[in-house]
């Protein structure tokens, strides 16, 4: 691939990567870290463009995931947040209109990896094979883990629903 071809390919697919990775990061970290990790993710996508598979979004999420993990390990987030939050407004999100405390409690009750696989499924809208690409596991393993995570979330919702004394609340939220 000539350098001009590389540029063309990158320019063609990068806007979709930017959009998806921005969302991925806005869901998982503070605006300052999101800004840094987005730049880093893009840089890696550019450098490793030749390794990018046809279905590049899960691959890009995987890159962002590792960059984010590094960033959070390496940096004292709170300090950076205090210094930089004023300067970055690309990642500011409002809380969803209808807060679902019950769901939030149920998600918080799950193990981290279960909650993350559910986020990838619902928020990033990924199928098990794509989740597998993000997490670096087999499609089969992703499928099983997703199934179990859904079941655990249902269990947690039943618990919190029952604890709050309104078992029917989940029904009421159906569209």
């Amino acid at each position, binding site marked *: 691939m000539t350098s001009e071809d590389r540029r063309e390919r990158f320019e063609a697919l990068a806007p979709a990567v930017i959009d998806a990775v921005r969302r991925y990061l806005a869901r998982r970290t503070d605006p300052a870290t999101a800004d840094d990790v987005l730049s880093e993710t893009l840089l890696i996508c550019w450098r490793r463009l030749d390794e990018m598979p046809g279905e590049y979004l899960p691959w890009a999420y995987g890159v962002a995931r590792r960059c984010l993990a590094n960033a959070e390990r390496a940096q004292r987030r709170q300090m950076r947040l205090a210094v930089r939050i004023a300067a970055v407004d690309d990642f500011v999100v409002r809380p969803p209109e209808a807060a679902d405390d019950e769901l939030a409690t149920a998600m918080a009750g799950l193990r981290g990896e279960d909650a993350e696989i559910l986020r990838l499924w619902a928020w990033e809208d990924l199928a098990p094979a794509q989740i597998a690409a993000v997490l670096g596991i087999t499609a089969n393993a992703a499928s099983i883990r997703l199934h179990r995570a*859904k079941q655990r979330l249902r269990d947690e919702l039943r618990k919190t629903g029952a604890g709050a004394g309104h078992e029917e609340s989940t029904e009421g939220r159906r569209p």
Partner: protein
Amino acid sequence: MTDDDLRNRLRRTDPAASLAPLPPDRVSRLLEESMSADVVALPARRRLLPVLAAAAVLLLAGAGWLVFRPSSSPTPTLPTAAPVHLAAPAGGQAKCREPQAATLAENADFAFAGTVTGIGDLVTLQVSKVYKGAAASTVQVEQQGDSSETLMGSGKFETGKSYLVAASAGTVLICGYSGEADAPGLLALYEQAF
């Protein structure tokens, strides 16, 4: 609760649902930053110099591209009566992309041609032409430091020589965007950009 119900309920709590799309100019800037930040880290300066000699256009620069990253701080209003002061970029080792007129036009908020009339703590240049920014007759620039290879030509300001200098937010732009006026391609770059 079916899978679909569960998924829909989760989706309603998506924190990124309200995230506004990035404006196209920010998208293209991110793209350009990624492609131009293709930094090749070189282990030691002695390895830098032969490469420099071989490729005059590709300036190996200190935080070259870092300096070129658009700054979020507001552009200072440059005084016209008093000499304009410009800072030297910070040092470091990196490789720059070949300079582009469009990038120069987009990033520089001040660009001029001038001749060095004196060198003291600061280098004083008599301005012969302002390409962009407020009119000025005299500009004072920090002498380029250890990352002297950032400036096209000899790398340092020298008395009597003419230079083309571009700056962003008060700092000289390097990476092939500033240097001796007769450095190969530099004048053409300025004429194309401004």
